[in-house]
């Protein structure tokens, strides 16, 4: 029994890690007023970049770094389109996803099915990992897990407690007034989009060099879209994103736990998507106002207009 609890908890945390990384990135981006539907594509690009660089250099950390850079660079496209050229953010994000999925498929083709022999060692925190039940599951984990938690907490601190955070939030709420305060709205939005893209790529890196240690086309499997839903579910707060992401990680794990009980694997695979809809519905039924997104989300800002 103890074994099952530990392994379930551990797998929940592993499955929730990429969701938390991508959701945190999307929250920062959306708080500045830019909707980025490119998460799925950027995640795929991050996954393939991290995999190739890790395999060729032998260093997982170089892989992580390369994924981060790739994610930030490709996100500039969305920033230029949606911030400078005031393009439709839904369409631009979709284009970014197509491009990311396409590039990852092309670049990664020679690497399909090749196993990664380099291991990224788990980090085990002394003392805490000796706590019965949860200790081993929570405090002996992939570095990505600790990174995800740290970045989410960091993002919360940034958004809620710092001057830059206030500027990002007010850019999403009222860019005109923000600009009057001497803040460069365009710069803030560029930064937010690029940082958000970097986070999505980290989520992809986790998938290919820590979670499954291999690259196959389509391995992101819709996680990017769930991250976008989780952004709403977390009500644009990185602190809430932490438990939201791991709740969804749990739903992924439940799939495998229930399969031996004779429940259709396809029904179980449907669960995360049904859960996403149900949970959004519950939030809305409880208090529709709570769903209030940043006021200027997905509205381009035109300088010098009333």
């Amino acid at each position, binding site marked *: 029994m103890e074994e099952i609890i530990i392994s379930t908890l551990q797998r929940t945390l592993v499955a929730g890690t990429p969701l938390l990384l991508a959701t945190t990135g999307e929250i920062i981006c959306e708080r500045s007023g830019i909707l980025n*539907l490119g998460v799925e*594509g950027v995640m795929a690009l991050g996954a393939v970049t991290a995999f190739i660089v890790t395999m060729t250099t032998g260093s997982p950390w170089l892989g992580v770094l390369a994924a981060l850079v790739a994610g930030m660079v490709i996100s500039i*496209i969305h920033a*230029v*389109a949606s911030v400078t*050229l*005031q*393009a*439709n953010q*839904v*369409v*631009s994000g*979709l*284009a*970014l*996803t*197509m*491009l*990311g*999925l*396409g*590039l*990852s*498929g*092309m670049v990664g*083709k020679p690497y399909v099915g090749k196993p990664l022999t380099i291991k990224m060692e788990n980090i085990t925190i002394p003392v805490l990992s000796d706590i019965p039940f949860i200790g081993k599951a929570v405090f002996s984990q992939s570095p990505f897990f600790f990174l995800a938690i740290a970045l989410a907490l960091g993002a919360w601190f940034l958004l809620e407690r710092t001057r830059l955070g206030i500027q990002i939030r007010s850019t999403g709420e009222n860019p005109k007034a923000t600009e009057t305060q001497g803040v460069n709205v365009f710069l803030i939005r560029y930064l937010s989009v690029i940082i958000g893209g970097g986070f999505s790529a980290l989520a992809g890196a986790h998938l290919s060099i820590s979670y499954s240690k291999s690259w196959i*086309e389509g391995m992101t499997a*819709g996680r990017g*879209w769930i991250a*976008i*839903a989780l952004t*709403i579910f977390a009500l644009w707060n990185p602190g809430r994103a932490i438990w939201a992401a791991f709740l969804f990680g749990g739903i992924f794990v439940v799939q495998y736990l229930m399969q031996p009980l004779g429940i*259709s694997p*396809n*029904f179980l*695979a*449907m669960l995360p*998507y*049904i859960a*996403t*809809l149900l949970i*959004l*519905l519950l939030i*809305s*039924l409880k208090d*529709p106002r709570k*769903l209030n997104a940043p006021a200027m989300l997905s509205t381009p800002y035109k300088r010098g207009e009333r």
Partner: protein
Amino acid sequence: MIHITSTDRYRITRWRVVMTNILSLAAGLGVISIIFMIAGVNPLFAISEIFQGSFGSVYGFKETVTKAIPLILIGAGLTLAFRAKFWNIGAEGQLLMGAIFATWTGLTFGDTLPAWGIIPLMFAAGFLGGALWGIIPAILKIKYAINEVISTLMLNYICAHILTMLIVGPWKGGTRFGFPGTDSLPEAAILSVIPGSRIHYVTLILALACAAILTMIIYWTRFGYEARVVGENPEAGKYAGIDFLKTTLILMAISGGLAGMAGVGEVAGIHQYLGYPDSMSSGYGFTAIIVAWLAKLNPLYTVLSGLFFAGILVGGDAIQISLGLPAATVDIVNGTLLIFLIMGDYFLNHKISITFSTR
């Protein structure tokens, strides 16, 4: 110093729209060429292969028309939704739901009804399936303020899994040698094709008719006007007494229904049985988004833009074989062209002037 200023352009001529689109596509092709070059492929050769493969031969052109059928149907429906700023990216699921409904109808009544009875029934069932799958996100958006991008996407995944559950479970046919999939549709439930091609012309005629009818609805009817107001000026719409729920339900029933009819065409015209979701649609629901965008949200123009992107799908298959490129190449082409198309919109709506000064 270089000063770049942009001012809004209020009069946009048709000529300027066409030129902007052509220049955007050309710029997109330029960037795609660079990507091909980095990948070690001669871009001129690859691009000419794409268009040779799709428009350069009789066989290729027939395939292009075949793939244009679902793109025109879905794309035309999407223009209506997008005009109301309802971001329906769930056409993939709506197509599959249409295919599911049509397959059930075909398998159930196909042996008792003649073709002239069963075929219209299947298209009606497919429309209904797609429409039902389309109005769920409409209700969720208007009644519960749930973002339609998320809901339509989740419904894509849900529908794909429902379909798979059906074909590995209760609907699994005995004639598939153990592979998942339904039995073949009865003879009467299969759409006839133009001899020597895969063009199921009934669906093609329906697609062209739908594009024409939707154009009339959008420009000439009160409903078309209301759909636009719902998207552009919700506040004014409320004053004018527009029922948002009703308008959104109708337009999503049409948009989803047309995707459902595309599903009927794929199942009854191409595959003749219901199989895995990936094989039932080659991402038509997503490609149709670009089709609608290139058509500037005018359903009639989706006939042209549908043909163009069908050509890219067919040409993409051709270079996969001849140049050994992965299937994802088409995504790169589509993604890049889409980005350049929306970037081009800026230059359509703005007048850019660059001035040099010494200070």
